[in-house]
Every structure is written in C-alpha cells, then in structure tokens.
C-alpha cells in the first residue's frame, strides 16, 4: 500500500493553495452554512453557489471538474430522504404503485427532495476542495487557531500520523489470514461465521495491544525530548493582507447568495 493512500492533498501551485489554512477552513464552513440556510427551492442562489464552487475549482488550478468528479460520494445516503417525495402535501405530480401502496409524488415533495440533494451535493464538494488545497497538518493548525481544544487537535494529529502505520499492520494481518485460508481438496473452506468472527476479533485484539505498546514507546520518545505533561505546539502560519482580503471577499459573496436566495 502506498504511503499516500490516505492523502487527499493535491500539490499544485495556485492562489488558493497559498492562502492561509484558516481562511480555507472558515470559507468552507461559511459556504456549507450558507447552503443550510438557503430555503427550499432557492434555485438561483443554488446556481450561483455552484458558480462560486466552480470559481474556487478554477482558482486552485486543479481543473474545473475536479470536485464534480468526486461529488457523488454521499449519493447513497439520498435514499434516506426519499420518503419526502410522497409525504409533503402539495399538488400531485405523478402516481405509481409500489407493492401494496399507492404513492403520489407531490410538487412540494419534489422541491424539498431536490433541495436536500443539491445542498448536500454543493457542500460535499467544498469539503473535498478543502482537503485538496490544504495539507491535513495545516488544517489541524487552523483548527487550533480557531480554538478547538488542543488535546483534541493533538489526538487528530497523532491519528493522522499513525493512520498509515496501523492500517499497514491491519493489511499485514489480513494478508496473513488470507495466506492461511486455504482449502483442502474436496472440502469446503472458511469455517463457521462464529469462527471467522473470532479470528477478526483476535486481529482487533492483537492490533490493540500492538497499538498500546507503541503508544508507550511514543511516550518514551516524547519524554526523551523534554515532554513533561504539557504539550506545546508550533503553528507556523502568518495571516497576510491577501488572506484577509480574500476571506472578506468570499464571505461577502456568500452573504450575497443569502440575500438572493430570499428575494
């Protein structure tokens, strides 16, 4: 498994890449919040929000269709909202039979359903953009600047650091299990579900102990470099004028969207 299997950062030179990570995090959250606040059926505002998204795509030198290609991640969850098509009172649009029920899709139901999908689709793309143009350690720094408790950001930083190491161990355990999952000629292999579950559980237990012992060694390494219970961090980011200007501009555009959405 390649060491950047868990990286979502695309290392390119661009205006957006050069921005302070705080700006990127704040604008992302503002955009998602704005989507949530736009009322159902505010199609003009949704359309303009999409243009905003395309603009960010373009400015990041990652290609106009970058987030679009990755945006259908949350689509399966749309199933959850499907009942909304039939349950909101309004003018019937179409009727059909499903098993023993007669289902009527109403116009208000359709409006609501599409609004939910569009909001979700727009928001997830901005989230994809965020991790593509800001390195994850920088996002953690931004969170720290934004007053997220440092114990939490430190745990997240450790998670990110050791994620690859531990997942690699999982894959080694899985491969070892694979290599020993042979079938004798003529007989069915695989064992019972209970047995398979126990093997899986043993792997989890094995991984837990290895992780626990690793954390002891990491603790010793921290001690060896002067850690005495109070963790200090260094966030090497300075806000430049361009960062402030961009942030203000972006937020203003987003506020404009809100106004347009309610016209």
């Amino acid at each position, binding site marked *: 498994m390649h060491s950047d299997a868990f990286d*979502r950062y695309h290392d390119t030179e661009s205006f957006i890449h050069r921005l302070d990570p705080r700006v990127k995090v704040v604008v992302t959250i503002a955009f998602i*919040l704005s*989507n*949530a*606040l736009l*009322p159902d059926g505010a199609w003009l505002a949704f359309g303009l929000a999409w243009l905003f998204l395309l603009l960010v795509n373009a400015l990041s030198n990652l290609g106009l269709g970058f987030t679009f290609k990755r945006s259908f*991640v*949350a689509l*399966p*969850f749309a199933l*959850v*909202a499907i009942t909304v098509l039939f*349950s*909101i*009172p309004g003018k019937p649009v179409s009727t059909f039979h499903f098993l023993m*029920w007669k289902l*009527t899709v109403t116009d208000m139901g359709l409006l*609501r359903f599409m609004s*939910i999908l*569009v*909001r*979700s*689709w727009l*928001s*997830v793309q901005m*989230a994809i953009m965020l991790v593509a143009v800001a390195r994850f350690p920088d*996002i953690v720094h931004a969170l720290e600047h934004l007053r997220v*408790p440092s*114990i*939490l950001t430190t*745990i*997240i930083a*450790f*998670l990110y*650091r*050791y*994620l690859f190491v*531990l*997942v690699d161990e*999982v894959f080694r355990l899985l491969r070892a299990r694979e290599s020993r999952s042979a079938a004798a000629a003529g007989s069915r292999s695989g064992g019972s*579900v*209970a047995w*398979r*579950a*126990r*093997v*899986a*559980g043993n*792997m*989890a*237990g*094995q*991984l*837990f102990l290895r*992780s*626990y012992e*690793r*954390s*002891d060694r*990491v603790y010793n390494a921290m001690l060896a470099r002067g850690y005495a219970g109070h963790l200090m961090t260094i966030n090497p980011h300075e806000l430049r004028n361009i960062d402030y200007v961009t942030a203000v501009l972006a937020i203003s555009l987003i506020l404009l969207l809100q106004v347009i959405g309610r016209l």
Partner: protein
Amino acid sequence: MLYSPEPMHIPDGFLNLYVSIVCWIITTILISMAVSRTNKSLGEKQVPLMGVMAAFIFAAQMINFPVAGGTSGHLLGGALAAIMLGPWAGMLVMTAVIAVQGLLFQDGGLLVMGANILNMGLITCAIGYGLYRSVSGANRIFKLGVAGIAAWLSVMAGAFFTALQLWLSGTSQLQIVIPAMLFVHALIGLGEAVITVAALSFVLQARPDLLGENSESAKGSKGWIIAGVAISLIVVFLSPLASTDPDGLNRVATDLGFIGSARSSAGPLAGYMIPFLANVSLSKVIAGAIGISVVLGLAVLAGRTLQKKTPVQNRKP
C-alpha cells in the same frame, strides 16, 4: 475497498440547522467534560495513548469478516474504545476518529458533525461503558456477554438517534426511517458485538492488567451505569413505539411544538411533516437542549455521589 463508510454518517444537507445546532451544543458540553476528566485521570500519558488509540479504532474499522452473501460485519468501535480506555477517553478518541472521517474522507458532513459525533461517538461510549461497568465484579464469561450486548445496543442506539434527527429535520418519515435504520444496524450491530467480545477476550487473556482493577476501565464512576441504562431504555421502548404508533410520538412532538400539526390522511404513507424551520420557536429548541444536558449532567453527578471504586492497595511482600 480501502475505506468503507458506515451508513450512520450523516452528510451535510440532510439535517435541519436547528437540529444540528442542538446536537453541537450537547456534543460540545460532553467533549469539554471529557477533556477535563481525562486530564486528571490519564495525566502525562494521555496524549500519546489516545492519539495512537484513535488510529487503532480507525484501522480496526477495516477489519472485517464475511457474514453472508457478500455482506460483512465490521466495527464501529465506540463500546470497545470506552471499555478499553475508560468512558471519557473513549469519547475523545471516537470524536477524533469521526472528525477525521468527516474532514479527510467526507464520510459525514462538517456542519452536521456534532450530530455524527453524538450518535457514533458519545452515545455508543455511554452505553458501551455504562452497561459493562455494571458488571465489573462478575466473572469473565458474564462480563464478555454483557460487553457483547452493550456493543450491539450501542450501535442500535446510534442508529435510533440518527433516525430521530433525520425525522426531526423533516428529511425522513418516522415510521420508515426508524425501522429501516434499526433493521440495517441490527445486523451490523451483531458484527460489532462479536468483534468487540473477541477483542476484549484476547486482551483479557494477554494483558489482563489493562482491564483489571487498577485500569482506566475500572475507574469510571457508577453514574455511567445510570446513563447507559437510561439511554438503552429510551431506545428499547421508543423504537417499537415510533415504528408502529408514530401517531403517539408525533402527538408528543407536536405538543412540544417541534412539528406543525398539518395532517394528510391519504393512506399508510401519508406524512405528518412540515419542514421544521417553519413552525418551531427557538426558545423551545434551546429549552430542549438544556433539558437533555441537565439530565445527562445529573446522571454523572449521581454517579459521583455514589461510592467510587477505591483502588486496591498493593502490599509489598
């Protein structure tokens, strides 16, 4: 697949803003409590321990085993984390896992992360630890059995509250989403139970000191038992009620001002829902959030007044 998402991660756009905010309020309160509690109990080691453990939970979620016909059981980890590390540390670890899942992999939205953390990180830990703690004196087999039930219930509870939030947001119909979520997660919960029990059993054998009397696991207060049992009871009693008699729950919700009372009587799938935004008053929402926080706070306080387990004194030979 390298990374397979769980069906409980709510994306942005599916929860109403008010529901999202209420969940954030509850989550923030609980996380703050967790931060200050773990400071006192784990001390210097907490940072490397919880950090590596968070990576462990994340990685362990990839350990799967085939169940039947292409489906596989795997782990969410809240109950396991809480039992192995103690309830508060477990909550922080799960928060980090869910945060990274949302931020890095877009598994779960950013604005609705408060709800996701509550469902998959906080409630699962409370139930997992609360029920396990209640049998801390019992023999191994019994403890493992209870741990399995706790793990299963924790997944069901997470699914239940997820469904509840979706309903309150006007995204799903109560009598569809609750049975659907519970049914899907009943199977997933079995996988959770089995892996949790097997992992615990392994650790109890190899390093019993990690789960013994002096461990973090044993030092949680008994208030957790109340919290864990209370949440389990809510789930157990409300789920069938919501599925079969949605009228009852709807009536309660309407009386509390959560949902508008326009009804349509066009058959079994007729909806009772009006978009949440239109009819609720902000004060009722805040009152609801305060109420829930007070209940949880009382549960923990109750535990502190109960006798805490005193550490066993080591006697030198």
